């Protein structure tokens, strides 16, 4: 139920609905996309970025909030840590308990390595759990990995590392098969054919889903498998610094119990960073669709140990975050809502763009509609655009919403909005870290031996923008690969004397560069106390 002030605009949306359903909006040309991006996408706001003055990416621009964390002090001082008597000793140490970490742990275990997961919250408290729309794989007869490659490469502005992207698309069908065999329930026709839809920027319908709980269904299944294999999961324990050995190889991590603050040492032959994204950094003051722990920790850990970042200056703002009601401000409204036929409509009831342009283009166009063009709807907490969900029931038939996107229905129903009958208000929300640590196709960082990375902490798989459904895919493909390769590398690794000299050296760099900061990093959790959270 919307209050009086929305009624006039709502009436315009309803009046135009039939006409808007029939409308086939044109897609933008490459030039039109470039124009709207450079004028309205947050990545192009130069005053929101800082240049790094120390570390492997010295001279590069990153969001200023990230720069502050990358150039902050360590949470530890070398002398306090007893590296001689580690609390844990394992072949493969996985940092992070999301989809990438769980996949990596399962494969490392399968390869016969001893493996453990440390995670600062619980296993499954991760963006994977919140991914709604689906996972891409080119497994239909009219599709191919090559077509998938072109879609993703173009969507990412031709900036992806091709060896990573080709691995992503070629291993995709196998990833779906692996998940199915673990028991993930994909939406299928009676004959077993996968129910697939478009995502923004796809040229074939290759989005596989489990209703709109796709990530949750994958995550809970992976978690169950980790537990069935008796893989140790040390929860509420954050990695706060990587440990290297005297040869500079990654060889473990300093851990901190999130509740007691006790420090522990984990020694390992190989380390996998699977720490996920950065939405809780709230770049440029945006709300986020991310889980509570998404604070770019892995980037900080890797950077201090000497690993390079790639495309850390590019973030993804999901076009459809909740703009109203304010209790769920910034929460994700899955792209699948648009895949199923809902269009974006301005306050006058006009469809102003094709609903399935890539995410960066769609987000920028929504921002333009609300700012320069003045066609947004005042929500009382900023501006928003209508996403006309009742179109879905008209196009797909009554019951489509409950069958295909029940979580969306539930989320709004709690606040008295029935998305089958009323449209919803959306605005872009900080969603995904396109950039991250630079790796080669075996998932090892380009310059720190035995340090592997998987999932959202990787940079370069997608280029400078990611398509819907390619992130659930990359956590599985690269998670599995990281686990396999880390297990293999562990077999041939002899760990030398452990050291935290790199932490001391980084502190010296901070001093020498004249950086004055009282901040420590990694951030671990956002601080929302005594204020209204965003």
């Amino acid at each position, binding site marked *: 139920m919307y209050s009086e002030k929305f009624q006039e605009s709502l009436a315009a949306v309803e009046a135009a609905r039939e006409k808007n359903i029939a409308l086939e909006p044109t897609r933008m040309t*490459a030039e039109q996309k470039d124009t709207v991006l450079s004028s309205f996408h947050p990545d192009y706001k130069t005053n929101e970025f800082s240049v790094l003055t120390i570390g492997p990416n010295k001279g590069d621009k990153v969001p200023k909030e990230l720069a502050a964390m990358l150039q902050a002090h360590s949470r530890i001082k070398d002398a306090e840590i007893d590296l001689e008597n580690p609390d844990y000793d394992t072949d493969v140490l996985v940092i992070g308990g999301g989809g990438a970490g769980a996949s990596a742990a399962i494969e490392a275990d399968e390869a016969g390595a001893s493996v453990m997961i440390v995670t600062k*919250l*619980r296993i499954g*408290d991760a963006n994977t759990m*919140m991914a709604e729309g689906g996972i891409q794989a080119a*497994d*239909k*007869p*009219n599709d191919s*990995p*090559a077509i998938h*490659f*072109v*879609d993703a490469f*173009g969507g990412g502005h*031709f900036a992806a590392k*091709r*060896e990573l992207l*080709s691995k992503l*698309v*070629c291993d995709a*069908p*196998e990833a779906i*098969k692996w998940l*199915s*065999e*673990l*028991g*993930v*329930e*994909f939406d*299928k026709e009676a*004959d*077993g054919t*996968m129910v697939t839809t*478009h995502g923004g920027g796809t*040229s*074939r*319908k290759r989005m596989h889903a489990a209703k709109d709980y796709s990530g*949750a*269904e994958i995550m809970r*299944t992976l978690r*169950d498998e980790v*537990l069935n*294999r*008796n893989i140790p999961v040390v929860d509420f324990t954050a990695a706060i610094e990587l440990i290297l050995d005297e040869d500079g190889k990654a060889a473990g991590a300093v851990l901190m119990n999130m509740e007691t603050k006790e420090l522990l040492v984990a020694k390992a032959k190989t380390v996998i960073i699977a720490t996920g994204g950065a939405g809780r950094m709230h770049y440029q003051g945006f709300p986020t*669709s991310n*889980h*509570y722990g998404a604070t770019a920790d892995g980037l900080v850990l890797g950077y201090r140990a000497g690993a390079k970042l790639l495309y850390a200056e590019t973030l993804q703002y999901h076009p459809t975050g909740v703009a109203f009601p304010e209790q*769920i401000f910034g929460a994700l409204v899955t792209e699948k809502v648009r895949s199923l036929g809902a269009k974006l409509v301005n306050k006058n009831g006009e469809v102003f763009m094709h609903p399935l342009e890539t995410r960066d283009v769609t987000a920028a166009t929504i921002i333009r509609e609300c700012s320069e063009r003045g066609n947004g709807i005042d929500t009382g907490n900023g501006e928003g655009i209508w996403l006309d969900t009742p179109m879905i029931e008209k196009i797909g038939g009554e019951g489509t919403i409950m069958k295909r996107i029940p*979580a969306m229905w*539930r*989320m709004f129903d*709690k606040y008295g909005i029935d998305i089958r009958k009323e449209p919803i208000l959306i605005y872009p929300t900080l969603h995904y870290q396109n950039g991250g640590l630079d790796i080669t196709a075996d998932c090892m960082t380009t310059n720190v031996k035995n340090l592997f990375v998987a999932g959202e902490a990787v940079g370069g798989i997608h280029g400078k923008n990611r398509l819907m459904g390619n992130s659930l895919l990359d956590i599985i493909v690269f998670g599995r690969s990281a686990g396999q390769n880390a297990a293999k590398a562990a077999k041939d690794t002899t760990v030398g004397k452990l050291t935290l000299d790199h932490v001391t050296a980084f502190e010296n760099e901070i001093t020498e560069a004249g950086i004055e900061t009282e901040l420590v990093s990694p951030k671990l*959790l956002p601080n*929302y*106390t*005594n204020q*209204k*959270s965003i």
Partner: protein
Amino acid sequence: MEKMVNIFLFGKKYSVPENLAIMTAMEYAGYQLVRGCGCRNGFCGACATIYRIKGDRELHACLACQTKVEDNMYIATLPFFPLVKQVYDMEKIPVNETVMMQLYPEIYACIGSNACTKACTQGLNVMQYIAYAQRGDFEKCAEESFDCVMCGVCSSRCPAGISHPQVAMLARRINGKYLAPGCGHLEDRVKEIKNGDFNDLIEALMQKPIEEIKELYNNREIEK
């Protein structure tokens, strides 16, 4: 000025704006959450919470991130509940009701209190899906339990000591792995890729100059 309401966090009174969810109200009051906070979006089940409105007999269960505060709300979070999670090998389990008898025999001790269903933070018919599990009807159990976020409130209220979310997890995995129809086009594509059928196409893309790929991308045919 925003309207304030009184809530009681673990019995202690705080005044908070009425438009906040329980989770954000706790933060407003000064709590730095570590436990009991995960996705903040209703998917992870970390923030199971029990509350009672003063003067009311009924206990309610909810997710703290998805529920607005009310005046005179007595709130206790349930950030962890000791569910029983049996370990099993998906490749070796029997695909019939004997698997439940072996792993979760307590489901047959259900006394029909329906306390689980009443407590479910997702509004699921929990007792019904347990009944399906008892009968070995895993497909129906999977469907009925699909929206479960495994918060554990159902189990906290169960007089028979059943760990409902774990029972449903097993049923869904059995359904996904063994009972759902196999997918021919997926099997075919995996074989084609293993066979190297796409190697030439991919190799060509690896070498192609950016301008040519741009041309390909900007003029590609998009399936209706």
